[in-house]
């Protein structure tokens, strides 16, 4: 109970710190929000009035208070480019990104775990080289380059998947998945490398342990030993690493969603950054950091559930 309480307090503190960092970063050079709304040609008096009404003349601390207070009370302000409440925009786009993040994680794990196990079982043989080389290739290409290759091969040449756009899952769920597939595959390939290495090294360690020898000596099939005994013990660390990659993924969806014109959170963030829509930048940056932090927490807790040896202390 104390553990849960402590964790909860620490989450609240971190959320608070995240708002501070977000606010600090977006206010290093306060671009004139009023001028962004009205354009550079607008008359000075109207600009001054708007600045006053937006609270831009207040000290930074007061502005910060307004921003955080607004977020707590549910008023996240309006986006300058979309002319819509930010909260509404975020709620619309979140689901689209959740699909991509989940899908790329599944693709990455589905590729990395067998590849890593295969490499560990055939350590220092050609299979190991193939596995580690493909992992190295995966990290060495920028993920947007993977994206471009996907567009070229699967959309332009083969025509199997659409090269851009987004379909509302409520209307056509299969269509959504079709649109999400290529960006997810590109992300998954970039993500895979790290997970393959992790699977390989954890599996290698476990395959050297006594209980594996015992299992083999008992006459269990090698398949059972590897998948049921060894992998069951290796999967914990692999999932932890996968969870920690969420942060990397949320950075990459900005590139990938923009490349594929897939209108999720990443795309929204990019539009905000490109147009210097300060209120929208603040909110998207905050939400992404908060989601990353909460996912890491969830992974920590999940790890306890998967591996009963870990005691809460």
């Amino acid at each position, binding site marked *: 109970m104390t553990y849960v309480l402590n964790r909860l307090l620490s989450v609240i*503190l*971190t959320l608070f*710190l*995240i708002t*501070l*960092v977000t606010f600090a*970063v*977006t206010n*290093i*050079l306060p*671009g004139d929000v009023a001028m962004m709304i009205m354009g550079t040609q607008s008359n000075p008096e109207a600009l001054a009035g708007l600045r006053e009404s937006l609270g831009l003349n207040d000290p930074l601390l007061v502005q910060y208070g307004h921003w955080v207070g607004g977020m707590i009370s549910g008023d996240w302000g309006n986006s300058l480019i979309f002319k819509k409440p930010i909260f509404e925009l975020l709620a619309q786009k979140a689901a689209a990104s959740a699909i991509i993040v989940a899908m790329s994680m599944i693709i990455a794990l589905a590729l990395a775990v067998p590849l890593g196990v295969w490499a560990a079982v055939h350590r220092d043989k050609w299979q190991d080289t193939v596995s580690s080389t493909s992992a*190295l*290739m995966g*990290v*060495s*290409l*920028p*993920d*947007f*380059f993977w994206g*471009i*290759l996907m*567009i*070229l091969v699967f959309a*332009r040449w083969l025509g199997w998947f659409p090269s851009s756009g987004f379909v509302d899952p409520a209307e056509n769920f299969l269509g959504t998945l079709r649109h999400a597939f290529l960006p997810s595959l590109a992300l998954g390939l970039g993500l895979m490398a790290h997970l393959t290495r992790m699977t390989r090294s954890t599996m290698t360690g476990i395959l050297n342990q006594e209980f594996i020898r015992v299992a083999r000596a008992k006459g269990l099939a090698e398949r059972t030993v590897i998948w049921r005994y060894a992998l069951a013990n290796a999967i914990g660390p692999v999932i932890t690493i996968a969870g920690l990659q969420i*942060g*990397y*993924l*949320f*950075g*990459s969806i*900005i*590139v990938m969603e*923009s*490349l594929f014109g897939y209108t999720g959170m990443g795309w929204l*963030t*990019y539009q905000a*950054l*490109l147009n*210097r829509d300060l209120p929208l*930048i603040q909110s998207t*940056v905050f939400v*992404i*950091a*908060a989601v*990353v*932090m909460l996912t*890491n927490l969830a992974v920590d807790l999940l790890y306890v559930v998967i591996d009963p040896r870990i005691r809460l202390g």
Partner: protein
Amino acid sequence: MKRFKTTKGMIGIILLLLIALVAIVGPMVIPPDAATAMDMRARRAPPSLTHIFGTDQLGRDLMYRVILGTRTSLEIAVSAVVMSIVLGLPLGLISGYFGGFVDNVLMRLVDTLLAFPALLLALTISAVLGPNIQNTIIAIGVAFTPYLARIIRGEALRVAQMPYVEAARSAGTTDLMIMWRHVLPNILPAVIVQGTISLAFAILAEAGLSFLGLGTQPPAASWGLMIQASRDQLDIAPWTALVPGLAVALTVLGLNMFGDVLRDILDPRSK
């Protein structure tokens, strides 16, 4: 040095030497306006004897542009990583050496920064400051700092508990002196390894930022910008994407291979 003689180490070193050569010597030997000269009759020309890597949508020679891009990329990546080390080293060193309250406060801040995906942080800083080469360096440098600080802190923590540090302390050596003479030299290998690996990420980050229009700005030559420009002509001129893409891939591959081998040599615990 014997362990560099693995295939991986050799490939890594050869790639890096080649790339460094291109970045340093390339811009000196190519004709001054070769990378900007537009040959309107040879727009999107496929690779041939006159244009070995083909030309882009403005008829500019891709080989020359890739060479100039090498310098841009390396300049930005190296400066950004140096900056993140300069910022991260004192942070991590102080945190790991003193421990306790200082460590708690500093690492809480670092952990908060780690919740922001590096690319998001870099993009945001670049967008707010206004994208250009100098701000791209700042953006990537700041975004990478928490990672460096975390690793340096861990190393400093380990070294600070060594008997020789305790001995120095009991001999009355000041903290500053101990950090400078005993801790710093012993964490340097880890910093070098991490720096090399960070370089690979910095190259990718610069390409990503430029690709999104929030990094290097045209008309400067940058790999990310070249890939960006190739998007609309993928069907008719795929080489405009493949040439700069391959340049990024080879550089990052070289750095990763070199970094892996370097880690095995300098940081035996990681084996």
